[in-house]
């Protein structure tokens, strides 16, 4: 399935292998995985809220746009919501193409759009306190290059 949203943990390696196996014609496969970081060592959890319904259609639209813009064999987007532990995979995109330039560009495109156009909101829980993660201006700016 090219777009998947859910609470359940996923295994990036197993997803990469399944994705690659399904696109035998492609020479180049790029993956990106986002992991819950704990830079200060005090993160208890990351909580991800989303907009059920809109999330799935937004991700599908982003994925379809990537398939149109780049010479791809396939592309997929996985994204979790709910409560995630430090070190857990948050999301993953993978792209497959005959040539590496398309696979790389499409993966970056998917990430840039997903960051600023898919309705997810992250909250960091540390020492009992929960703070919403602020959007970064550079994420919005990243869209301008496409």
């Amino acid at each position, binding site marked *: 399935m090219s777009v998947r949203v859910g609470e359940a943990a996923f295994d990036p390696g197993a997803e990469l292998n399944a994705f690659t196996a399904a696109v035998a014609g492609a020479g180049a496969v790029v993956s990106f995985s986002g992991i819950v970081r704990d830079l200060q060592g005090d993160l208890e959890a990351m909580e991800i809220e989303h907009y059920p319904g809109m999330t799935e259609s937004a991700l599908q639209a982003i994925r379809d746009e990537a398939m149109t813009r780049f010479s791809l064999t396939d592309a997929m987007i996985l994204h979790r919501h709910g409560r995630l532990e430090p070190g857990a995979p948050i999301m993953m995109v993978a792209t497959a193409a005959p040539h590496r330039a398309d696979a790389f560009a499409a993966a970056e495109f998917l990430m840039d759009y997903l960051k600023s156009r898919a309705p997810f909101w992250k909250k960091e829980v540390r020492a009992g306190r929960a703070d919403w993660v602020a959007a970064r201006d550079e994420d*919005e700016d990243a869209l301008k290059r496409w």
Partner: protein
Amino acid sequence: MLDLRYFAWVRERLGTASERIETEAATVADLIEELRAIDEAHAFVFADLGGIRAAVDQELVGFDASLDGAREVAFFPPMTGG
């Protein structure tokens, strides 16, 4: 009747994830004007629109978007997925 949905700090600040209102607002901007008048929490949330995004029927839109035929309008902060 219009269904309103709120997410992230907008939801927390308003103390609710959704409400249903009666409105004649023609655009999202008009609707925001009406919402500001409801109470202090609404006035606070919609005071600075730089930190607010809107979706009409689950499509991200600008504040000048028409509400003609709209069933659901959502307000939330800039997204932080990925």
